[in-house]
């Protein structure tokens, strides 16, 4: 069965500290993995996708097929990174399967 697991409901860090939001997935084929973010009072929006191999707002995520993981990382957290982060998976032509989300709180 397709599944996305985000083990942490809440992650609290201090400004300038490294951040890693964990995501593990279960999928029998070759999935596409995404991170979506929802800032306070804003719409859910795409942060990055594995196929682009890009860095957005200092965040990166590497797909590790051996560990079936797609962890989101940032070396130095900023207060404006505080938001809800969702990891999501898409199979071939299917809708997204989301994890339950991790709230990132960055304090000064």
């Amino acid at each position: 069965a397709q599944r996305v697991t985000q083990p942490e409901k809440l992650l609290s860090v201090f400004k300038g500290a490294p951040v890693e939001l964990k995501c593990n997935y279960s999928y029998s084929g070759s999935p596409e993995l995404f991170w979506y973010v929802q800032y306070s009072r804003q719409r859910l929006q795409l942060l990055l996708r594995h196929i682009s191999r890009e860095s957005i707002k200092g965040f990166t995520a590497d797909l590790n097929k051996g560990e079936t993981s797609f962890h989101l990382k940032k070396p130095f957290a900023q207060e404006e990174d505080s938001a809800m982060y969702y990891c999501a998976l898409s199979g071939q032509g299917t809708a997204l399967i989301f994890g339950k989300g991790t709230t990132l709180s960055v304090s000064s």
Partner: protein
Amino acid sequence: GAGVSQSPSNKVTEKGKDVELRCDPISGHTALYWYRQSLGQGLEFLIYFQGNSAPDKSGLPSDRFSAERTGGSVSTLTIQRTQQEDSAVYLCASSLTGGGYEQYFGPGTRLTVT
């Protein structure tokens, strides 16, 4: 250009009543999705429309839930005989086509069943 819009933004209804939630996708997007966002459950897929293909209804939680998409554009999600557990934020998203394209989300409709 205009993003995905949803109406109403808030809906309070009594248990047992029917409700209709509307979604206007981005013009030209052939794929449209409905999700439910509730505390502790994250984002739950409900239904997916892709062009003229039969919709993927595999996420609908019960036969009280249904959705249609008219003319390949506007979509309506209908919940019949609402229950308190239906209270949630219902999100609509659209994308250029299905699969790995970026999904653009609407602001959501907050449904409260009393």
